């Protein structure tokens, strides 16, 4: 998030797109409720009706995968009415003229045809967002999990920059991170192309710095993303997979393909706290520890590094994850000898500019938000203050709308989108083992619009088959008008009715995120 979570309470307008916030980030939803209470305008754009929409000032249901068109339409209106902030654009950005050209192609009437959102609503969103004193954007996987994921995010950045709704308190662009520490995992270089703090492996000075710090020679080549690893196994270029706290047999698209890859690998190691469907296919399982069994830090969605303290001893044969990694590295010939998570944090702050001022002593209490470059720095509440962007000037990208990789046809006439439900988390490794949560939602349910269900004689509680080009599953149907006609929705938490057997592996060309949010599907009643 460019903002802090608390700032959302004091915003005049919040534009929520592709985030079912009450289900997936309920504590952030609280801030949106409070903003509403204080009179802020709430805009909700999501292909499904969502709870937050019930309190929204504008609620629209755009067609799946049409976010770029919708955002361009909103920006077209902003240009047209002169609601953009030319001063901000001139002083702090570059490339706006090219965007202006592209926006000409997106008048509200045309956008309305693509997105299914009325021209009036497009104008209203443009007005509320652009003309409020402080507006903030909240987005999540509904924006990113598309073949146009990067385009979608860039479009949101365009919108924020052209209206000057970034770089001031309570204005910004806020991707909501799911896991308590997914931000931390990325900060630590858990991505193919970067070291800690997003320092690129391709930059020679960065490479030299880490070579000196670690006393080893390092590669300057960008590594593989998860989908590339899976296809690498199939083509023979990848021999072994070491999977930590991840369950691709449930979370990754096209499960049949993932299964083939895991079975084809010469060695699969899984480190987790439970025996997951992925661990079932492993040659070696290493028991790690849960949050309650370890010391360390989590970095949350607002870039806040927080201490976590061990409450109970590791269960059974489980060991601290850092100790397992340290031992394996040592046995491979690169000796590591940290004596505690704190020792590791000392190294992190010595090689990571944005963590430079972070020490365990300073993390007592409320923690620190990066960037925190030195011991005197009190951390950063919001990013890009005064329009100072990381690269200097904010870069505009002209973006044209592209249809999803797979579209409906005669054989697969419905759209399928996937997501989460409030009672479960991701692949259910933890939440489906919690009795209270499992009682709340014990099984997968397919949401079907009554009009589509009626044509096939499907009623709530009926079993149905869903088939795509990748696979076929059986699931129980529930009729609801919260989903639009010709779209069906199902959560992906449930391995026995695994939505990802169906989903598409088509990737965003830049960041390689799979298009989990859109594919074409056939629906039949189980006879």
């Amino acid at each position, binding site marked *: 998030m460019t903002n802090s979570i608390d700032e959302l309470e004091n915003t005049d307008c919040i534009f929520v797109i592709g985030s079912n916030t*009450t*289900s997936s980030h*309920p*504590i952030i*939803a*609280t801030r949106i*409720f*409070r903003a509403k*209470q204080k009179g802020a305008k709430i805009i909700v754009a999501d292909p499904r009706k969502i*709870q937050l929409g*019930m*309190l929204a000032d504008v609620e629209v249901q755009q067609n799946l995968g049409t976010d770029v068109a919708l955002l361009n339409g909103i920006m077209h209106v902003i240009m047209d009415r002169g609601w953009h902030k030319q001063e901000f654009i001139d002083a702090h950005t570059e490339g706006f003229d090219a965007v202006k050209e592209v926006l000409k192609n997106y008048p509200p009437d045309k956008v309305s045809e693509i997105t299914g959102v009325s021209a009036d609503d497009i104008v209203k969103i443009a007005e509320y967002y652009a003309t409020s004193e402080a507006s903030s954007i909240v987005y999540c996987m509904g924006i990113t999990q598309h073949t146009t994921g990067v385009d979608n995010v860039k479009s949101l950045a365009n919108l924020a920059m052209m209206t000057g709704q970034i770089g001031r308190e309570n204005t910004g662009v806020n991707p909501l991170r799911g896991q308590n520490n997914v931000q931390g995992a990325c900060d630590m270089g858990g991505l193919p192309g970067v070291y800690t703090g997003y320092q690129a492996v391709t930059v020679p000075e960065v490479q030299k710095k880490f070579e000196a710090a670690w006393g080893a020679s390092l590669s300057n080549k960008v590594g593989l993303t998860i989908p590339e690893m899976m296809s690498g196994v199939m083509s023979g270029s990848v021999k072994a997979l070491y999977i930590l706290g991840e369950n691709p047999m449930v979370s990754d698209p096209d499960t049949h393909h993932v299964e083939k890859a895991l079975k084809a690998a010469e060695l699969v190691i899984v480190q987790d706290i439970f025996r997951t469907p992925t661990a079932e296919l492993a040659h070696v399982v290493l028991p790690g520890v849960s949050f309650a069994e370890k010391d360390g830090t989590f970095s949350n969605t607002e870039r806040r590094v927080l201490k976590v*303290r061990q409450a109970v001893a590791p269960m059974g044969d489980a060991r601290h994850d850092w100790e397992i990694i340290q031992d394996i590295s040592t046995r491979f010939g690169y000796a590591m000898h940290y004596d505690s998570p704190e020792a590791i944090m000392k190294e992190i702050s010595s090689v990571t500019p944005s963590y430079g001022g972070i020490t365990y002593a300073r993390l*007592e*209490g409320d923690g620190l938000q990066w960037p925190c470059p030195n011991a005197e720095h009190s951390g950063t509440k919001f990013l890009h203050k005064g329009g100072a962007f990381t690269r200097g000037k904010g870069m505009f990208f002209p973006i044209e709308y592209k249809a999803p990789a797979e579209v409906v046809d005669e054989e697969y006439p419905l759209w399928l989108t996937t997501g989460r*439900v*409030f*009672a479960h988390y991701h692949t259910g490794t933890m939440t489906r083992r919690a009795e*209270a949560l499992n*009682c*709340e*939602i014990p099984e997968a*349910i397919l949401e079907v619009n009554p009009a589509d269900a009626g044509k096939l004689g499907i009623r709530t509680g009926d079993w149905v088959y869903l088939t795509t080009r990748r696979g076929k599953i059986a699931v129980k149907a529930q009729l609801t008008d919260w989903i639009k006609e010709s779209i069906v929705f199902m959560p992906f938490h449930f391995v026995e009715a695994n939505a990802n057997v169906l989903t598409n592996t088509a990737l965003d060309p830049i960041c390689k995120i799979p298009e989990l949010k859109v594919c074409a599907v056939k629906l039949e009643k189980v006879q």
Partner: protein
Amino acid sequence: MSENIKTKVAELLSSGQIKGFLGLRSNEGHIGPYLFTNEAELDSLVVGDWKNRGDSRYPLNKCLINIACKYPEDTFGVLVRGCDERGLKALYTWNQLNPNKVVAVGIACPQELADACECLKPYPDECVDDEKAKACEQKAVSSIDALAIADRFALWIREFTKCVKCYGCRDVCPMCFCKECSVGSDDLIHTGQLPPEMPIFHLTRAVHMIGRCIDCGLCNEACPADIPLRTLYKKVADIIDKEFQYRPGYTDAKSPLNVL
């Protein structure tokens, strides 16, 4: 404040009147419930942010039920404010705790907290010190009562719309001791929905607060959606008081609805 409590608890422990004292202690900067079993530990006893609602208030009575179940022969002390003491009395009438096995050590709340809670009795019968805040007017209830019925209904529906079904209101409630809970039963209220069925989810809980809710306000403080649950349950308590002249925690009598 905490010095007087420590003196009192030290007496109780050293004389053998109690096996342990359930209070709050500070640990690595966090305040939480703790069972003190010897005098030496009392250094870490605290009353938390005594003057405000917030992170340092816990349903100690609820913890005490678990401890009492495990050690039914022993007597335990427990830190109580006015609301907690009402909770003890109500729990005695519901046979969830044995009054002969509990020794309450009372503290009175300051006026600012009493005002924030709109508390009718912000002090227990006996306190370790004498200063007592005054009972407060029930402004939150009367302001909603003043609305036209349609507006009142709209207000509550708007509030219930925000519910993320975390069950925090139930889980923190010192009076929620049922083994099976109606609001979590799919036969009565559909599970798996967000927001939960309106208004039946919240009204079922409100009705179940009859003869129970002692107006501690922990539900209100736990609610991540800021739903003014306390105001709702205060109103329920007012109705029962008017119709049956009964307010839980102010008497040793059983709830009039116990016989139904």
